[in-house]
């Protein structure tokens, strides 16, 4: 029997000798492109700001203090909670959540439609979904702004037809930002849901109908729970980048729609930036995202253990 086991499986040192070098590229990639940058950001967030950008190597908690607390103009008053940045974070979470829901509402039927086409035409539909993503995100976002501006190709015909008297005020609104986020990240919703629906066994729907379930009940009780992993993956893939997005809020939103991405972006631009503060905001954002993912992972583990 020993000869039949794949080499290394029963033999720890042999396994390590063969597999460890093969894993090296992976470890290098993760080390250089993930661990190192995050570590750098973490360290920067505890440093002191240099006035024309950059940092001074003095360790301090000042950036986190500045994020959460207000100690008055000269820093000598008793601290009260600083709402500015918390509000920006809250708004960002809200915006990202709405964008995710819009993506889900449009993305699920789209993915369902594609996954239920004959195999040959599925590839074409998927290709069509991804085509816009060959164009740079900045250009696409600017185009969207052009599309929805007061005298753009959306408002003009509507006014010409007399359907509206004043242009729809879209630019610089929350709706515009959500539209921008939706447009930017829709494929990240469609693709994982498509993958889940494509694997879905339609005999389950037949079985549900056979057991007297209506179409809606079948959707709620059978289809959605079974393709749930794809839906959750899609939601995470849309929610997380939406939360940190800065192009759509910058270009389509106004001062009232300022989001975390823009806040962080600003800290690293030009001489008025504040690198440690930007790094601190990024770390807080990352912690937030990790907490959400951790809850998800724990919920998944519980379900798996049933």
């Amino acid at each position: 029997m020993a000869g039949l086991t794949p080499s290394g499986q029963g033999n720890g040192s042999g396994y390590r000798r063969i597999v460890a070098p093969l894993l090296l590229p992976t470890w290098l990639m993760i080390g250089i492109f993930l661990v190192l940058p995050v570590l750098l950001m973490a360290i920067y967030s505890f440093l002191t700001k240099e006035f024309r950008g950059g940092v001074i190597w003095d360790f301090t908690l000042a950036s986190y203090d500045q994020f959460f607390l207000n100690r008055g103009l000269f820093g000598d008053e008793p601290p009260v909670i600083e709402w500015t940045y918390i509000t920006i974070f809250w708004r960002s979470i809200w915006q990202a959540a709405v964008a995710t829901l819009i993506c889900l509402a449009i993305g699920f039927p789209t993915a369902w439609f594609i996954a239920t086409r004959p195999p040959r035409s599925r590839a074409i539909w998927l290709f069509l979904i991804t085509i816009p993503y060959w164009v740079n995100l900045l250009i696409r976002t600017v185009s969207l702004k052009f599309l929805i501006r007061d005298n753009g190709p959306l408002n003009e015909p509507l006014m010409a037809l007399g359907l509206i008297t004043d242009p729809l005020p879209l630019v610089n609104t929350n709706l515009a930002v959500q539209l921008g986020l939706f447009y930017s990240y829709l494929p990240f919703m469609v693709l994982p849901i498509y993958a889940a629906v494509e694997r879905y066994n339609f005999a389950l729907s037949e079985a549900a109908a056979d057991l007297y379930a209506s179409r809606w009940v079948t959707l709620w009780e059978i289809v959605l729970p079974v393709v749930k992993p794809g839906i959750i993956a899609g939601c995470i893939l849309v929610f997380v980048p939406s939360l940190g997005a800065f192009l759509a809020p910058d270009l389509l939103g106004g001062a009232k729609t300022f989001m975390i991405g823009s806040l962080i972006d600003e800290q690293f631009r030009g001489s008025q930036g504040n690198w440690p503060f930007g790094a601190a905001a990024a770390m807080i954002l990352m912690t937030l995202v990790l907490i959400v993912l951790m809850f998800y992972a724990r919920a998944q583990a519980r379900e798996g253990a049933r």
Partner: protein
Amino acid sequence: MSTAIEIRSAVKRYGTTTALHAVSLEIADNAFFTLLGPSGCGKTTLLRCIAGFEDLNEGEIRLFGQDIARLDPNHRPVNTVFQHYALFPHMTVLENVAFGLKMIGVSLDDRRARAGRMLEMVHLSAFADRMPTQLSGGQQQRVALARALAPEPKVLLLDEPLSALDLKLRQAMRVELKTLQEETGITFVFVTHDQEEALTMSDRIAVMSQGRVQQVGSAREIYEAPVNRFVADFIGETNLIEVTVERIEGDWARVILPGGHVIRCAAAGTSPGKHHLSIRPERLSLAKTGELVATIERVVYLGTDLQLLTRLTSGEAIQVRLQNSARTEVPAPGTQVALHLEEGAARLLAD
């Protein structure tokens, strides 16, 4: 006995191919009815039309007199056991069995109790809280059965439910299915390509081929009195010989075998001319002397039986099956023997 299902000239087309050619069938209440045929014969299509997963292009399906052909599957009081079970993977075994009851509005306590009783019936009470993926194929099969029986359908449809099980389990399940059908009194419509399965369980069998029902009858009828070459060949093993019917005398036909040997057999509605004769290998025996002379070409040892491959002097290959007993003399290949045809062993076919 009342009729559970009546199918009248059911036609089903997929594009240019026709899956069902004006199929008509009557299925009696409280019967174990089997649709038997090779893959692609339309048996599963017919079952799916009864369940409502496919719509007929023409024809009627009546369930206890009511035309159901245009109803959605969730409005038809029939339940299905699927070939690959189609258990809901995110629900426990008990939840799976209780699903149909939940849909028809049975209260939580009631459906738990009833689903529990169903699981008891299929000997799976201990597995109520497991997920379907934690069960073996045979156990999943029983859950599928319990799930389909729980809402107490008027008719239970079974789509090759045993095909994914191994031989031993399949044989055990045959007996269990038959018992279950007798105990519940529910009409079972069972689809299979396995003739042994069909013969052992069914009260009546419809043999299907190329979208048409070839013959309907009891297991004994379709085995002993097949109407055409397809049925004779598909059910069990048989020798098909081209013969000439010389004349018909009342219920009897005078048949000339290829070597000129003349036999008498039931006319079975045939007319004079070329026909095929079906002779079951086990209905033939060896004799010392006789007019039907053959040469033994090969002897195959099958354990319970011996299979002799012989050739008539006129050139036709004929199989003979002898029971393997201590007294059986095994003739050596090359010997000439006479074949003895029992009275009624040969069956004249319509084609």
